[in-house]
């Protein structure tokens, strides 16, 4: 139910504390954290730039989040996605889903990530240690992952 796009890092512990604060009805929280890997297609990475489509990004994340709530009885959800320049080991994305029971929380968190990967207007450009930049290609496996939910 909360969606944010930001350049700053996020603090998973603080986000989780806020997510469940003052509530005693939540039984299960599934949290996904995506991180920048130091290697891509056999090349060592210096950094990565995340570009997005201001306005549409937030609208699309809201649509994805609403769809998850339509499909599952979620008590709460959170999507935080970083933009700008990120380095190996940095956080990229955070997704949380809460429900009374764990299966719903697992499914909804996986759904949010699959949809985000295929629908949210973000693009990654990788810069290798030799300075050469290249836009990341969309992966077939992400389209396949999306197919699970149709």
């Amino acid at each position, binding site marked *: 139910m909360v969606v944010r796009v930001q350049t700053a890092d996020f603090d998973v512990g603080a986000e989780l504390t806020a997510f469940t604060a003052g509530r005693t009805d939540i039984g299960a929280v599934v949290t996904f954290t*995506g991180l920048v890997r130091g290697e891509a297609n056999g090349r060592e990475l210096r950094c990565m730039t*995340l*570009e*997005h*489509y201001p*306005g*549409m990004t937030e*609208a*699309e994340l809201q649509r994805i989040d609403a769809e998850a709530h339509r499909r599952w009885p979620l008590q709460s959800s959170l999507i935080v*996605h970083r933009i700008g320049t990120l380095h190996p080991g940095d956080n*990229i*994305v955070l997704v949380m889903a809460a429900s009374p029971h764990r299966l719903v929380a697992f499914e909804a968190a996986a759904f949010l*990530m699959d949809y*985000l*990967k*295929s*629908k*949210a*207007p*973000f*693009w*990654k*450009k990788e810069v290798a240690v030799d300075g050469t930049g290249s*836009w*990341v*290609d*969309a*992966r077939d496996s*992400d389209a396949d992952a999306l197919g699970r939910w149709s």
Partner: protein
Amino acid sequence: MTVKFLYFAWVREKIGAAEEHVVLPVDVRTVADVLAWQATRGDTYAAVFTAAGIIRVAVDQAHAQPAASIGGAREIAFFPPVTGG
């Protein structure tokens, strides 16, 4: 009809602009029409837009399929498949 075009990622880099304001011909009515029209705007555009099926389109900040109408659109964005997450 004047429309704002937006370009992202390698589409933006190849076109050499993030944004344009364009007057669309009246017979350009669908997403497929606007992609075909873009390919007629010179070598640079042709190189980007001739490879049909690669470029994704959003009309007024929502994903749009080739058959979708662009009637009344104020903002049309062109970009490669998304790679966030």
